[in-house]
């Protein structure tokens, strides 16, 4: 099994989620995060103080998938999350040792 972490632009979430549902991904976890890579931040001014905000709001999607599915999932995320401009995000893939469904105790791929 693989764990796929995708950091994407927030407005792309609905599109990515819909496309993942279409290829059979049943569930996912998202977090609202901040981050930066090559994308520049922005300036904020409050009375006499100016702040350079480097961190940009992003969404992180985490999905656990079977090995056979992982390539399809990655391609789908790239296709829907891409805009072509800096700040589109990144995908990280890690090996997943195990997954357990709490309600039933199922383990492995049947827990996904």
């Amino acid at each position, binding site marked *: 099994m693989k764990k796929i972490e995708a950091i994407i632009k927030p407005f792309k979430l609905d599109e990515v989620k819909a496309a993942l549902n279409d290829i059979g991904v049943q569930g996912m976890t998202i977090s609202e995060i901040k981050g930066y890579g090559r994308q520049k931040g922005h300036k*904020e*001014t*409050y*009375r*006499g*103080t*100016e*702040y350079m905000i480097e961190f940009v709001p992003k969404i992180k999607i985490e999905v656990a998938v079977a090995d056979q599915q992982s390539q399809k999932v990655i391609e789908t995320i790239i296709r829907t999350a891409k805009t072509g401009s800096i700040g589109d995000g990144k995908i990280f893939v890690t090996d997943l040792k195990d997954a357990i469904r709490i309600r039933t105790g199922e383990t492995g791929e049947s827990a996904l």
Partner: protein
Amino acid sequence: MINYSIITIFIICLMLTIVSITLAQDQAAPPPAAAPAAPAAAAPAAPAAPLKVDSGDTAWLLTSSALVLAMTAPGLALFYCGMVRRKNVLATMMHSFIILCLISVQWVLYGYSLSFGPDHGHIIGGLEWAGLNGVGLEPNGDYGATVPHQAFMVFQLMFAAITPALITGAFAERVKFSGFLLFTLLWATFIYDPLAHWVWGMGGWLHNMGALDFAGGTVVHISSGVSALVTAIYLGKRLGYGKEPMPPHNLPLTVIGASLLWFGWFGFNAGSAIAANGLATSAFVVTNTATAAAALAWMFAEWAVRGKPTVLGAASGAVAGLVAITPASGFVGPVPSIIIGGVVGVLCYFTTSKMKNALGYDDSLDVFGVHGIGGTWGAIATGLFASKAINSGGADGLFYGNAGQVWIQLIAVAATWVLAIVGTFILLKVVDALVGFRASEEEERMGLDLSQHNESGYTL
């Protein structure tokens, strides 16, 4: 663990309460025949025709009192709390809210008497009116000839409340609640009450000198602004000031607060006519005009200097305009009010950005930059633009042929600055010695909501 600070404050409050009630009882004991023996500051109505309560005047004065209350809570509470960090939102609101409660009682017990009571040496009122003894429902000829005396008293109460509440902006995010309570009580008693007497009380020396202050440029804004500066310097900067980011956590609340301040200020200025008449109307109009001009001026100044017009700038500009027009509101016309507002908008933009950063003190919410400076300009501007055509009970200013008024205004301004600086410094020393004022490093890091109140502002 016994909290000695709380016990100390409680004992002081209790002592003040007992003293006030005792004095009120003493004054109530002698029969009415003793009244003429007291310093005749309150003009007795007996020989002339009895004063008649006017329902229109009374309705407006009571309404104005409620409007000014709204300026403190929720107006100022929201304006300030939106600008601090999330971890201090409740504590900041609590400052304004509890001051309203504290002064409401202090004023009735002895505050009103010290401020407006029979004059002693042109410096202070006495305790003859402690517990509102002698302050009934008949008009007092000196303080609103057409309204119940208590209506005037409760109107003034709201001014006495908002003034110390303004100072809280200077020490936001770094004070102990106990120290803040004691400081406020002492400041109200030893700085606000005497100053109100000097400027508005019958026999007060600035009043006798002819200083013009319609609704509180000196009494409210300069006093709180300058005291704020002293306190900010004395307490020192917030941890991480200048290095860690401390942007406002909820500007929508600040804008709502500023709007409520604008709304309530009509009670503050137009209500100070103590009548529902042409003068109140004139004050209402110039208040609105100056405020709008100041908001625009600040916004354009910031746009030119920084490249973007900010919402905080517009809201701050409006407040600065309200401050500046306060002393002038009953004496100037609409076009001068545009000038007064326009100037203060630009002036206060620079004092809260360039000047504060250059001098390096941490006046968290710019109380000195807006109220101290804005109030000083307003008091001087009154000496420039006052016209007897607007208010025959006032005087003419420099631009209406009377240069002398500016000097009188400057003396009043100077006296206020000195009282605020010296008095506040002494009080800070006293508070520090008794209960301590600044919060500990750990308390400040944790946030005042948790460390002072065991509460969290946002559990959403």
